[in-house]
């Protein structure tokens, strides 16, 4: 067997996505939560490229490209927001950023 089944790629993508969800839900540091979001975006990118291979079309690559661009823009704005939160509250714990809770 020299060919990799296409479902292996998709399962790997699902595993990475689930790990990203786990990090997003269980971690309390803002920066790590943000990195988990990047992990989920990467998992979805892998799915796009795999479907692009299966359909023998370049369109999935373009979607991946746009996801990358949006992720880069999101990282810039998100990290600026983290800096502002840290400047105002001197904490990186998301439990301490609860102004809208009550």
């Amino acid at each position: 067997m020299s060919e990799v089944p296409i479902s292996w790629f998709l399962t790997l993508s699902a595993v990475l996505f689930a790990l990203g969800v786990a990090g997003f839900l269980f971690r309390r540091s803002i920066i790590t939560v943000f990195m988990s979001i990047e992990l989920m975006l990467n998992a979805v990118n892998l799915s796009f490229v795999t479907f692009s291979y299966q359909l023998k079309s370049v369109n999935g690559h373009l979607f991946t490209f746009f996801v990358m661009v949006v992720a880069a823009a999101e990282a810039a704005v998100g990290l600026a927001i983290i800096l502002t939160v840290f400047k105002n509250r001197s904490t990186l714990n998301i439990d301490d950023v609860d102004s809208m809770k009550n």
Partner: protein
Amino acid sequence: MDVILFLIFAIIAVVAAINVVVQTHPIASAVSLIGVMGSLAILYLLLGAEFIAAAQVIVYAGAVMVLFIFVILLLNAGAEVKRGRSLVVNLLGAPLLLALLGLLAYFVERLFPSGVGVRFGGFTGGTAQAVGRALFTTYLLPFEVTSLLILVAILGAIVLGRKELD
């Protein structure tokens, strides 16, 4: 050969992703995330996506993660403090997560039982030429809108990051 290559880098990706989640220190998570992105770039090459693999290394592992590590160093972020979580998270978190993973894997196996196999060189339409041609013909409008998005993001980052004037 392709199977061995896939298995090596898939295992590296999963182990590094687990490391991202379990490490308490943000800088360790960031370095593990670079490992995930690097091994995903190899898998993209296996799938014939040359341009995307290069962009993955340059944009993600290069630019985005450097930004992350820069912010971690700037804020001197230490290990996160452990504190009690809510009961719902403790009881339902892991089972619901495993249910999500199981559901995704189930549908993948149902939808692609023995579809086409992936071998290196099976799809050669992912060159920079092909991607660029599609980008500047079919996807010209989204491309231009993306440039506007980048502009807005840069302005937003500057506005958020500047010092208060008064």
